[in-house]
């Protein structure tokens, strides 16, 4: 059993404990799908091969659909949970792009996407089993539908990777390389998550200490109104 599967199983009751938390989670998935779409669109534009461009476009189209499906379900759940209208689920699904294709090159890009899709399959299968056990048919069938596409994604990226690599060994090296790279990024992201909080707290302290400057600024820079000559 892989670490992903073990962790996903362990976290299931926590992650899906309430409609509100589920809505949050699925909204996050929608964002991930949207981000994947952006990277695939970029790949389609940049790859020298029209064949691969077509494959990336088809794949991007699937991910757009997935983003919509996850987003829609997230909103249904948010409505059930009565989530406040200010909550992120109500906002348009908008992720940023990491331009993976540019940063990694096509070979490692394919390896990275393959690894991601393969992990998604493992993860989604765990969720489907959990939802079925819980009698959450709707969520189970949502993921089952999406899983069909994810299998296709994992297969074609693997095929293209081995086709593009000089040798089988080179393809496997690429797979190992992106796994290492991803582990490093996960570590960085965790570090950032922590650092962000430290920064926030420390900045609030700075803010408190800077309070007297508020008076200074009000005195030195009174608000103006009406016309000011240039």
């Amino acid at each position, binding site marked *: 059993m892989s670490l992903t599967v073990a*962790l996903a199983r362990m976290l299931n009751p926590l992650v899906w404990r309430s409609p509100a938390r589920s809505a949050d989670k699925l909204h*996050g998935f929608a964002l991930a799908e949207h981000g994947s779409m952006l990277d695939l669109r970029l790949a389609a534009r*940049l790859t020298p091969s029209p064949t691969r461009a077509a494959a990336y476009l088809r794949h991007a189209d699937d991910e757009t659909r997935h983003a919509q499906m996850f987003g829609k379900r997230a909103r249904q759940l948010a409505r059930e949970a009565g989530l406040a209208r200010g909550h992120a689920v109500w906002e348009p699904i908008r992720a940023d792009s990491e331009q993976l294709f540019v940063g990694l090159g096509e070979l490692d890009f394919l390896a990275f996407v393959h690894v991601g899709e393969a992990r998604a399959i493992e993860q989604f299968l765990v969720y489907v089993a959990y939802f079925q056990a819980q009698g959450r048919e709707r969520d189970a069938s949502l993921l089952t539908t999406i899983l069909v596409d994810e299998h296709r994604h994992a297969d074609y990226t693997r095929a293209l990777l081995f086709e593009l690599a000089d040798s089988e060994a080179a393809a496997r090296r690429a797979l190992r390389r992106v796994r290492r790279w991803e582990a490093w990024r996960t570590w960085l*992201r965790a570090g950032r998550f922590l650092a*962000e909080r430290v920064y926030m707290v420390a900045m609030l302290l700075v803010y408190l200490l800077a309070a007297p400057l508020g008076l*200074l600024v009000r005195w030195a820079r009174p608000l103006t109104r009406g016309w000011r000559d240039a």
Partner: protein
Amino acid sequence: MSTPGKRPKRSLLRRLGARLRTSGALVLHFLHPARFVLAPLLIVLLFAGVLLWLTGGLAYVAPFVYALF
């Protein structure tokens, strides 16, 4: 359509030099006679800058990664 360009490489030292010059210009900006009273804001800037440098940038959403938690 275009491909992203190859960026000219610069040595770390030169980049550091450029950043230092900008920092210097920023200090001068706030010490300018017209905004001399704003000079104390430099202290806030300094604290914020050091904190930011120590803690790195802010996070983003990862593509192809469905967060476990």
